[in-house]
């Protein structure tokens, strides 16, 4: 055991756990730091499944086809080398989860795979409607083994509050104990696994509240490079409940749910009319956009609704019973007898901390994985690929960090914790971002939002964290403005076509308090 080697892992969802366990397997110790315990991480919400070309369904599936689907889904906005690495290793990742005891659906020792959006063959391993939860349970149990050995040390109510960088090298991170308010600093290699940027869109995402985006804002201000910040995936069918958007899973449409809007007093099943072949099962971004467009059409009124009245009893009892219970509880509508109003909600962030093929950032010694990182998913991620990316990425980041890991110091700081972010400021930033980063974007709206955000960045009386958040928000808007084309999740009415000249990543950095934005090759495995 290399007792003296110690790595910090921030975030204890799928990516953080995979990283911590992988470090422990190498005999490298780690601090597993998270705002809340793993049981509360967003990863437990994943329902649909995890992709790997295991070819157990007699369809002759191969990693090469998984690769092709992922590249196409992501609109070729990622290096082939990275995606190939992911899809080639996917079967091994899923087998690892099975060895750890995740009870994925199987028969006679063979995993059962199902169809999932954007993929031609059955390659999604799942467990009823709780795939993320049962995988997390298996990883949490495995991590406990190493906790007992002292290799993994949990800091389960600790929030990242600072990152210190000198000459592009990571010096230390600071964390606050949310229970005692005590501050600590840790030196050494660090892996950021802090999830998506939900907190920038409070109440508007399908994800969890502890993913505040603060960690990303802190990293950005410290000089860490972010890519493709404009790439935000909206899921077409979500329902608003106070504090979040609740996902109405694709399965509801897969089983026969139909989208309509009232036009001239009659329901108009617009997806079926516009896309006779795939209808309600078109890709997420296409449906989300159509939902915006039909609301503008003459004679149309009210919300878009999901009509599930024709689904049979067997489906309600055996496949969608949880969904029905949730809709009844939170919306007071029984989907068996009444249509359910739905609208698109923010579901996944393809953009984030840019990492190279080893998952290291432009700051040496700082790594990132999972939804916090920008890797693998290009301009749009396929359902089932994010759990894969988080698990695989966490493992790669851990192996890379382990190579150069050394001794790490822990210091109790005497300083007071930094002032927290203000909810009023977060709400203002959210409104500005929503204006510029909707499903259908226009230059004028984005410009207005950019101006408002610039003003916010310069405003007096902002707490340090709110200023960092405004800065990262500005980088999101500038990235969207700079991409003068439509690709994947980024759709502009003034540039509705894809333009090959823009098959590049937007790369944003913060240099002396100012944002530097440039385009970099999508084919490079390096950050810049």
């Amino acid at each position, binding site marked *: 055991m290399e007792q003296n080697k110690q790595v910090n892992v921030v975030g204890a969802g799928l990516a953080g756990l995979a990283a911590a366990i992988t470090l422990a397997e190498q005999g490298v110790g780690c601090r597993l730091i998270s705002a*809340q*315990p793993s*049981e*509360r*991480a*967003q990863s*437990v*919400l994943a329902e649909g499944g995890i992709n790997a070309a295991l070819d157990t369904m007699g369809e002759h599936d191969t990693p090469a086809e998984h690769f092709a689907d992922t590249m196409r889904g992501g609109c070729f906005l990622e290096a082939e080398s990275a995606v190939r690495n992911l899809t080639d290793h996917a079967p091994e990742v899923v087998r690892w989860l*099975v*060895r*750890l*005891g*995740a*009870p994925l*659906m*199987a*028969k*006679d*020792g063979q995993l059962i795979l199902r169809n999932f959006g954007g993929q031609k063959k059955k390659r999604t391993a799942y*467990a*009823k409607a*709780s795939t993320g*939860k*049962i995988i997390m*349970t*298996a990883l949490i*149990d*495995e991590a*406990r*083994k190493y*906790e*007992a050995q002292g290799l993994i040390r*949990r800091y*389960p*109510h600790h929030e990242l509050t600072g990152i210190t960088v000198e000459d592009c090298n990571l010096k230390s991170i600071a964390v606050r104990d949310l*229970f*005692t*308010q005590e501050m600590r600093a840790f030196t050494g290699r660090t892996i950021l696994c802090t999830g998506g940027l939900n907190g920038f869109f409070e*109440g508007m995402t399908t994800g*969890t*509240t*502890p993913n505040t985006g603060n960690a990303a804002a802190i990293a950005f201000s410290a000089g860490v490079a972010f890519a493709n910040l404009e790439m935000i995936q909206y899921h077409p069918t979500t329902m608003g*409940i*106070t*504090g*979040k958007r*609740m996902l109405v899973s694709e399965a509801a449409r897969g089983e026969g749910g139909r989208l309509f809007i009232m036009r001239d007093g009659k329901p108009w099943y617009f997806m079926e009319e516009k896309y006779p072949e795939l209808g309600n099962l078109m890709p997420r971004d296409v449906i989300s956009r159509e939902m915006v467009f039909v609301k503008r059409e003459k004679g149309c009124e009210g919300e878009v609704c999901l009509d599930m009245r024709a689904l049979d009893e067997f489906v309600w009892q055996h496949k969608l019973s949880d969904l029905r219970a*949730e809709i009844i*509880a*939170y*919306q*007071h509508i029984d989907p068996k007898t009444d249509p359910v109003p739905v609208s698109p909600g923010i579901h996944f962030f393809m953009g984030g901390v840019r990492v190279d093929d080893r998952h290291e950032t432009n700051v040496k010694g700082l790594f990132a994985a999972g939804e916090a990182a920008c890797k693998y998913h290009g301009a749009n991620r396929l359902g089932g690929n994010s759990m894969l990316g988080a698990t695989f990425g966490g493992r790669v980041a851990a192996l890379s960090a382990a190579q150069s890991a050394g001794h790490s110091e822990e210091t109790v700081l005497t300083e007071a914790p930094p002032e927290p972010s*203000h*909810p*009023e400021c977060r*709400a203002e930033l959210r409104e500005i971002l929503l204006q510029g980063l909707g499903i259908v974007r226009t230059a004028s709206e984005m410009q207005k939002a950019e101006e408002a955000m610039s003003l916010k960045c310069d405003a007096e009386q902002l707490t340090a964290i709110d200023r960092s958040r405004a800065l990262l928000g500005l980088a999101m808007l500038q990235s969207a403005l700079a991409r003068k084309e439509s690709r994947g999740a980024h759709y502009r009415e003034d540039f509705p076509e894809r333009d090959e000249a823009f098959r590049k990543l937007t790369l944003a950095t913060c240099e002396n308090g100012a944002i530097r934005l440039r385009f970099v090759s999508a084919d490079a495995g390096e950050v810049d």
Partner: protein
Amino acid sequence: MTYTLKILRRERNVQASYWESFTYEAVSEGDTVASALTALNTSTSPKNAEGESSRPIEWECSCLQKRCGACAMVIDGRPRLACDALLNESKTGELRVEPLRKFPVVCDLTVDRTILYDNLKTLRLWPSVEAELADECRDLAYESSECIQCGCCLEVCPNFYAEGPFFGMATVPLTTRLLTELSPADYREIARQYAKHTFAGCGKSLACKDVCPRRIDTEKLLVNANALAVWKRKKEKRK
């Protein structure tokens, strides 16, 4: 409809608690205690029912849809998830909201549930070798993976107290999962710890069964865990 939340509050590092009431105007039929707390905390200084500025209400939440266990608290005397407690269930429009009582209070409604995790470690709940899951055990392993470690079951358990020798229902699902996935030779130590810390202290009141927010069939998991760990029944015979 306007609801009043009477919240039992406590400042950090202070022993005494006090009640403070807040009002919340519901925006939808689906509004829960979590909706009210979220809305109140959109201000840095939420106003209490008397119209005075107060400090934000500390509570834990994450998924807001009954999947993560963060928001467990005692609502009108019953341990529940705040995001599962519909306001319109209240007949009077006034709800009493308190932190879970079996764990130390950190601040307001946030409690320190560390003991849950310490107990799981004492029970040595991890796979010592690779798991081997037979098809007929898969459903049981699935169901026992669903526990969210919220602590509601311990709140109503007549025998559980923090730091006590009896660990309560919160450890049973994970035990059951490992018992179904490992061979008797590989779960011998888990079984020994289970007999000592769970089986021995359980009076089978099954109060846990009524409160589990995930509707886990605690009785079934308990029966299976007892059969495998204590009575050494063979797995093939169990469903």
